[in-house]
């Protein structure tokens, strides 16, 4: 379990970002090479397409200690595989609605479209998302206690 508080006791959220290989991951790269800052607690997982993200991945991330999960893909219409992100959009909408229905904070999950050219946007999106998650606090409703307890 990673430490989630800074030295002065502030909450530092752990964020998992699923980034599509063709747009958003390149966007993140651009943000990096352009020396734009975004929180270091955003862990990027590269996926071939935003529609590769299975609902299980998102729940797994929460189980393993994520406080927020964001999925980034190409803008609708720009998918490398033509239509992947359209399917992802429907799936994620329904999944997020279901999580909301189960009472899980609806702002813990987000989908953003970030192109390879939008380094600035990537950093803005991440900063904004991290801010929201920090406000929400630690993920309690979808936590797995086994991953939080010490074994001895």
């Amino acid at each position: 379990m990673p430490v989630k508080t800074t030295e002065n006791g502030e909450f530092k959220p752990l964020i998992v970002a699923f980034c599509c290989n063709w747009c958003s991951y390149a966007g993140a790269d651009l943000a990096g090479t352009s020396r734009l800052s975004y929180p270091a607690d955003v862990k990027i997982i590269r996926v071939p397409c935003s529609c590769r993200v299975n609902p299980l991945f998102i729940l797994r991330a929460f189980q393993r200690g994520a406080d927020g999960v964001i999925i980034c893909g190409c803008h609708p219409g720009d998918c490398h595989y033509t239509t992947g992100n359209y399917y992802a959009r429907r799936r994620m909408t329904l999944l997020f609605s279901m999580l909301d229905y189960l009472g899980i904070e609806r702002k813990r999950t987000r989908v953003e479209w970030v192109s390879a050219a939008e380094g600035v946007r990537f950093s803005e999106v991440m900063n904004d998302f991290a801010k929201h998650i920090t406000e929400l606090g630690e993920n309690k409703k979808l936590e797995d206690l086994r991953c939080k307890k010490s074994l001895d």
Partner: protein
Amino acid sequence: MQEIFGLIKEKAEKLFADGSVNRVLGWKKGETEYDRIPSVFESAEELEEFVYDGFCAANLSKYLIRESREDGKIAVLLKPCDSYSFNQLVKEHRIKRDNIYAIGIDCDGKLDIDKIKAAGVKAIQSIEENGSEVIVHTLYGDKKFNRQDVLLERCLCCKGKDHVSGDEFILAQNRVDTTVKDRFEDVRKLEAMTPDERFEFWRSELSKCIRCNACRNVCPACNCIKCVFDNEDSGVAAKANVDTFEENMFHIIRAFHVAGRCTDCGECSRVCPQHIPLHLLNRKFIKDIDELYGEFKAGADTETKGPLTDYRTGDAEPSLISDRGGSN
């Protein structure tokens, strides 16, 4: 249902006699007054044990996945709501339509033995269905119920009395409508709660789950040859309620995997030994799909693309959810 019971049995006997089928999929009497076992009858003689009454609630269409692959033709009895599952399975190419003779049969709502027992009925000796009345004879005395009060939850918001598929129909003369409420009524009630109330509600319901997997195994939409939860490498504890997270995850993922394919047949809630209202998860998806992507009835036909295998360029953005009003 006595009138059509005779007609169905007669029909089944005739099908055996003229050799058009070699098996009939129906229900058999079990050991108690209310036990009805889904059964394959292989001859007219075996039909002795055939039964069709208020307790024949099981949706038989899932058995066709196995049975339609056997030799010969099989006749199946489908209640109106089962015919949706049947269509959906045909659409997904999980059953061999050519090997099946589908008989649509009438239904006047199915009884819920747990509702009867919840009224304190013990040691049942016999149950009499008499029009709008159900009379239960027990060792401790008789008890009379209004039929409508002891119907399965799903029958109170029946999808309709009409079959969406079938090669032949056996219907009663006086058809009873059991619908008393809109099927999204309970979903709306939950939506109107605060997130914390909803969380509490689902936590208390899902914490009852014993992970027997009955909901999955009975579900006609859960027809994967190998379920993701049976995958040793998936790292899920599929056999025990080890943790609140596992309980949530199983039910979220299961509902998601059948979203757009679930016909709302209600079998999951019926078989749940803990009476978890699992249909409320499926109905939420159905309601969302209807509202976001246009009315869609899974299993209404065998051609239309399902909402999750389709898209429109102008679909709603997922931010729609987080922009909803209310707290959080």
